[in-house]
């Protein structure tokens, strides 16, 4: 059975980055470290992304550069927390799920 740290290490083993997730309108990684940051790339018509805790719904909106890569901070949440990074509103929003994995001390 692989631990959370192993999974994070495996995800970053190839080129130092985590696996990519996303599709039309938004691209980012699918794993992150608590208190760290992730690179987000949004389409040219988007100027902000929303990071939300998928369990509690607490969210924060962060401005990003349209059409460019932007580093956004990951909240300092416990390992195992599932976050969503989204653009747009309503049922047409595009959402990427990011799992926060705490590295071993």
């Amino acid at each position, binding site marked *: 059975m692989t631990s959370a740290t192993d*999974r994070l290490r495996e995800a970053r083993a190839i080129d130092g980055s985590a696996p990519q*997730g996303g599709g039309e309108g938004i691209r980012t990684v*699918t794993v992150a470290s608590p208190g760290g940051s992730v690179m987000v790339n949004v389409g040219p018509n988007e100027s902000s992304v929303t990071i*939300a805790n*998928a*369990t*509690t*719904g*607490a*969210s924060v909106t962060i401005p990003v550069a349209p059409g460019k890569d932007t580093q956004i901070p990951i909240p300092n949440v416990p390992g195992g*927390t*599932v976050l*969503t990074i*989204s653009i747009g509103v*309503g*049922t*047409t*929003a595009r*959402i*990427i*799920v990011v*799992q926060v994995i705490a590295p071993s001390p």
Partner: protein
Amino acid sequence: MRIAPVYVIAPLAGKTLPTRRAFLLASGTFLAGTVVGGACGYSLGAARAGAAPQQEPELPSSNDVELDELRRLAVKAPIDELFEKALPFLHIRVSTYKNDEILWRGVDRLSKEIIENPGRRVDLGLVLVLIGQIEGTARPENPSLRDRVPALRLRRDELRRPR
């Protein structure tokens, strides 16, 4: 100028019904058709109503267009449509309408389908969000959802395995 008489042969008169009798015959046929058709339609409809699955009652209006749409997704929308919009559905449910009882039925349908239909293509992220919401916010009076968490974890682990 001389005018000569011409004889035109008239066709033989056919056997025709008197107008009154024809009207009575047409009316009678129409009435008989109506009675037989109505009886057949009623019996077919009654039989079909008895055999049809129980219809969902109409959803109460909340005077909130977004909430009504989410409720429709949760309860009435085809399962494929619910899966297509599952992540936005779960995101809005937990961030805006956390206390809406009806929306939990969407969580119920999603989790049930993921467990009972291994052939359905499911995103790992969706399973993670479902587990998180059921563990983190499911109500005590909804224990069946918590009972599904172990099976959802198994599905999550399957999706994590490299292929």
